[in-house]
């Protein structure tokens, strides 16, 4: 069984369910919390996607970087567009920067499979923090 593809699918499911959860409470969240939510969601999803894709396709460095930049950009913009135009800009730029960095980190980790599990657990912990902050913030 291919572990990396399952991880990518689980990431997509987690981020969509987190988006629906935040969408329900979007009127209760102020702009400071909204800015931090958009930065966190976009950057960690871009980091995890870039590392998984460079493990799967080590020969196509350019294509993987472009795809992970677009993933971070679109996720940060979608989470930021719930609140304000300026939170949209913040999530956009953070997604771009982390998406450019992620395939380099994944390639420098020598294709070790424990590093992917670390990134996955960081993503899950950050999504849990986002959900709990939108609940009790």
């Amino acid at each position: 069984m291919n572990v990396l593809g399952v991880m990518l699918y689980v990431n997509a499911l987690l981020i969509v369910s987190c988006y629906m959860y935040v969408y329900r409470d979007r009127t209760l969240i102020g702009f400071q919390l909204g800015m931090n939510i958009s930065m966190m969601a976009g950057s960690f999803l871009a980091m995890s996607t870039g590392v998984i894709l460079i493990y799967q396709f080590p020969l196509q460095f350019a294509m993987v970087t472009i795809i992970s930049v677009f993933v971070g950009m679109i996720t940060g913009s979608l989470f930021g567009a719930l609140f304000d135009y300026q939170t949209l800009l913040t999530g956009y730029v953070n997604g771009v920067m982390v998406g450019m960095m992620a395939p380099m980190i994944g390639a420098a980790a020598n294709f070790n499979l424990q590093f992917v599990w670390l990134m996955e657990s960081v993503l899950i912990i950050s999504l849990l923090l986002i959900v709990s902050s939108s609940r009790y913030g």
Partner: protein
Amino acid sequence: MFWVMFLMNLYISVCLYLMIHKKRKIFDDRFSMILSYCISSVSSIAITLHITFLVELDFVQLSIVSSFIGGGIGWLFGSLRTFQSLLAGFSHGMIGGLMGMMLGAVIQDPSLCSLPAYYQRAIELNMVIFSIFTTGLTTMMCGMVYYAFRV
């Protein structure tokens, strides 16, 4: 070709600076902070990536030059309104400059990140792809900032 792309990036940044400098009386401090950190990070990534492609220097000199350029861009865009925008622009400009330099070094020498070795032709193709891509990012950022003054 890289000279053309480099001058195009520089031209977009200067136009954006002149436009913001003309309208600097009308925005509040939160908007100026976000504006300075967005523009300085994206444009310093693009400019230092092209400098890495164009200039033949070794790694340490290149990192010094690119961190100075990134910090200068952040300083310039942040110094329009208040000090918090200057701090945000300076730190993100320096991070963006170093990241663009690292990306250019990895593209030119893929064994730096323990990627498998390419042919020479593939490296040149990657350089062209990344040059076009970062110029597109800068143009998109310019469009979003131009749209932000309308909202």
